[in-house]
């Protein structure tokens, strides 16, 4: 069994699609693109009207390059059509709904047909296989289960692979470490910062992760740096693999690193990538840095045509030594908008503002301070005390703090620290207020 695990570590039958010759892949992409554009045009009013505005019909797409004629889709479109406005399948064909946080407290809803779930499972299987996992592996899935796509996405992929899944979900670090040790876990899925925390906690429990069978970490849902990877790999002795995905496209499993760990292979047979200039929208040549735009080539329930991810990256030229023909993107370092990712949860400064709006007298002076403690992101919201909110009683001020924290938790789905500060402590700026102080060290 061990021998099989080693020898098959980088290949799984489903991974065959990773090696399709580029010319054939382009042919497949073109035929799928035509189908998906026709589907979106026929079934989603927003796409149809946007295409009609540009005098486009599905027949206008005569080559893969014609994709650049099509209008972009943005997160705002998902919000504006909340909850089901971009669905291209009737509800009786939809087998799953997920949701992620939006900018105004309303989530963004995404839908899957059975076929979509199968595609998702397949790209997650290929992701796990690409980082050397196989049946026989014991995968501890510490991504949150629920509306967040991370948990179930990884779960189905791991089961599809034939691996053993431990659906432990997030949190309860001591139990995570106990399970990791007692169950002989060989791979873990979670955010990289949470794993760093596990390493620290394990050390406090006198457990050295290097002594455990754990050998692979599949880390995603937040941007992380090469130096953080180095730290994780040195401290835990595992291989730390970067996985990329987003709910709007499918969830985790849009792109994955191979053991070369030099860029993430995009599952291009399902997700067509372009890099654009975020200002002009013009498509940039290979190798240039810009915003990643993805088109779902096979998604039925909710086709996304040229979805602007806001993630800044570049498509890497040349072929990967691993032999995969799938193009690679550089790991994501930053985003073009102001979205913050706190412990895997999307947070927008505008959400904080919306929450403060609910607590009278707290606006307009606030600031978000981000730090990292024990490997976990900490978010603190500074709120200036005003004549309206100030009380001469300690208890009343503590109550105000709690009230603000409750309002924030309600909107963000995340408990954050609230600190009342003196008036004029928060730096005023000319023009756009600096709402976010990011003190998370590039570790």
């Amino acid at each position: 069994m061990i021998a099989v695990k080693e020898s098959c570590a980088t290949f799984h039958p489903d991974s065959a699609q990773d090696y399709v010759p580029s010319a054939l892949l382009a042919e497949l992409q073109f035929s799928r693109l035509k189908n998906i554009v026709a589907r979106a045009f026929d079934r989603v009013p927003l796409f149809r009207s946007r295409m009609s505005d540009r005098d486009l019909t599905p027949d206008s797409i005569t080559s893969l390059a014609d994709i650049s004629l099509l209008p972009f889709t943005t997160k705002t479109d998902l919000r504006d059509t909340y909850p089901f406005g971009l669905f291209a399948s009737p509800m009786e064909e939809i087998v799953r709904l997920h949701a992620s946080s939006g900018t105004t407290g309303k989530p963004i809803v995404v839908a899957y047909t059975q076929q979509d779930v199968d595609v998702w499972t397949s790209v997650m299987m290929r992701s796990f296989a690409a980082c050397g996992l196989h049946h026989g592996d014991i995968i501890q899935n510490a991504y949150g289960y629920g509306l967040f796509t991370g948990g179930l996405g990884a779960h189905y992929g791991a089961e599809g692979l034939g691996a053993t899944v431990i659906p432990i979900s997030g949190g309860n670090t001591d139990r995570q470490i106990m399970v990791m040790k007692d169950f002989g876990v060989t791979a873990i899925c979670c955010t990289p910062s949470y794993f760093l925390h596990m390493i620290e906690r394990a050390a406090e429990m006198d457990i050295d992760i290097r002594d455990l069978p754990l050998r692979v970490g599949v880390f995603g849902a937040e941007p992380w740096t090469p130096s953080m990877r180095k730290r994780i790999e040195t401290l835990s002795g595992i291989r730390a693999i970067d996985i990329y995905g987003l709910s709007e496209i499918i969830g985790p499993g849009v792109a994955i690193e191979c053991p070369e760990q030099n860029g993430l292979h995009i599952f291009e047979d399902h997700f067509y990538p372009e890099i654009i200039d975020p200002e002009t929208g013009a498509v940039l040549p290979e190798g240039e840095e810009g915003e990643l735009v993805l088109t779902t080539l096979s998604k039925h329930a909710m086709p996304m045509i040229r979805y602007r991810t806001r993630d800044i990256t570049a498509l890497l030229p040349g072929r990967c030594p691993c032999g995969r023909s799938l193009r690679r993107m550089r790991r994501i370092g930053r985003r073009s908008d102001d979205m913050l990712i706190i412990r895997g949860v999307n947070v927008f400064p505008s959400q904080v503002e919306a929450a403060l709006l609910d607590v009278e007298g707290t606006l307009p002076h606030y600031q978000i301070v981000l730090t990292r403690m024990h490997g976990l992101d900490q978010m603190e919201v500074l709120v200036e005390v005003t004549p309206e909110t100030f009380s001469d009683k300690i208890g009343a001020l503590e109550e105000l703090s709690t009230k603000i924290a409750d309002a924030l938790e309600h909107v963000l789905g995340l408990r954050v620290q609230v600190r009342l500060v003196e008036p004029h402590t928060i730096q005023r700026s000319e023009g756009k207020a600096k709402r976010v102080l990011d003190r998370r060290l590039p570790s």
Partner: protein
Amino acid sequence: MKIQQLSIFSENKPGHLIAPCRLLAREGINMQAMSLADSQRFGILRIVVSDWQRAKSLLEAEGFVVRVTEVVAIEVPDHPGGLSAVLDLFEGSTINIEYMYAFPFVHAGKAALIFRFDHPDAAIERLRAGGMTVLDADALTNR
């Protein structure tokens, strides 16, 4: 008979208490009573001063958040049982003491107690009925 107390918000950090005190010193405003309440992250400086309106506008002009609260000052003999005699008067009543602080009049053998009651008028009535000396602002100043 109620006295205007000023409360000033302060972060619980080194150097944060001195700013309002320095301002009052510069302006020649004397603090007749003061107390500092603090939690882990912030504090509230409570003061009774000679000219509260002027102090308030000066502080506010400097950017402090100031709140005016009505408190009640009582003079008691500075010996054991001075405070408990006052508290006895409120046993079984619905009047609540939000907070209080005390300071002695060193030479007179008296102490002043400053109370923040939820119902100050009712409290004054009860104190008077119990024979307590309720101080007004002048009495506090000229003690």
